[in-house]
């Protein structure tokens, strides 16, 4: 009995010592910069609203409702086109008058303004060219340069378009 009591007490003492040793265990820290190293490998998440759209899209596909949605949209488009066409056909006169007045009030003035601006720019360029007087020698030099540039470019193109020459490699088999 005494032995058993002694044994129990010894075991309890051991437990207390073991608990104390286990309690002395501490946390270790990784090297500085660990957090940044982890974050450099974490993919930035998409904003919530984008993920919401994706989720809804996936749900539409998964539940098979996407076909109904696309069919509905196509049907609605065809229906609205038919309605518009019918309205145009039934009110052809009014629609034509409306577009004519729109062209007369907006389209024609805008077209005329565009033409006017183009003519003005062309006149400006023409007067600029006319104001420059070049001597015969300068014109000859410019023309000669142009001919040289064209010839040089043609020669480069000709060289570039040649097939690559196969180099013959002679293997030296002598010891």
């Amino acid at each position: 009995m005494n032995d058993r009591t002694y044994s129990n007490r010894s075991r309890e003492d051991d437990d207390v010592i073991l608990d104390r040793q286990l309690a002395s265990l501490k946390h270790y820290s990784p090297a500085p910069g660990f957090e940044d190293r982890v974050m450099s490998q974490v993919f930035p998440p998409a904003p919530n609203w984008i993920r919401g759209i994706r989720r809804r899209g996936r749900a539409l596909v998964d539940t098979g409702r996407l076909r109904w949605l696309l069919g509905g949209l196509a049907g609605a488009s065809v229906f609205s086109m038919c309605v518009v066409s019918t309205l145009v056909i039934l009110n052809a006169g009014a629609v034509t008058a409306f577009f004519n007045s729109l062209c007369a009030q907006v389209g024609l003035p805008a077209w005329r303004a565009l033409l006017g601006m183009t003519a003005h720019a062309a006149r400006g360029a023409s007067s600029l060219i006319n104001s420059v007087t070049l001597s015969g020698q300068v014109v000859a030099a410019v023309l000669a340069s142009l001919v040289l540039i064209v010839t040089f470019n043609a020669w480069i193109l000709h060289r570039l378009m040649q097939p690559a020459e196969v180099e013959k490699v002679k293997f030296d088999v002598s010891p």
Partner: protein
Amino acid sequence: MAPPFDLPTATDQEVVEQARDGLEAAYRELVRRYQRPVFSLIYRMVRDRELSEDLAQETFVKVLNAIDRYRPEFKFSSWVFKIANNAAIDHLRKKELDTLSLEGGPDATTAERVEATALQIGDSGESPLEELEARELGSAIERAISRLRPEYQTCIILRHVEGRPYDEIAEILELPLGTVKTYIHRARAELREILDPLREMM
């Protein structure tokens, strides 16, 4: 956009919600909260600082990149520890296949054979990192823990270092509650057996 509450005082679930909304500060907060416990668990199991950092990093990258798949009915800490423990166990299994045991070769049956096949350590010059590891993991209790089976190590560390309840340890290790209690009981018995001769010497 400023967070609606103070991240350091928020619960894990609240921080995870913020992370799911794409708030980088929430991701960082989760790393800050768990970097030491996760690193400590892995470090005690693999006993190599650099490798432990790699495995801890791998754990966090896995957790944070899969945060959308986290199910809130489980504790976030259980999820993190489960991934960390799996990373360490996988590494130990791989290592077991291509290394010799420090305690001697697997076919060593006699004392002479064990001595002959045991790896000799401590003879060569240690690098600063190895010195740090020896200092950190050199205490009697740390060495005793390292001699336990990996499952026992995880149980003891989670219970006595992290202070996790039995049911959470069971969830982390995917074991029945009774098995976890048995493991901890056996692990403590083994620790006592290992440490007793040292106490007598002191």
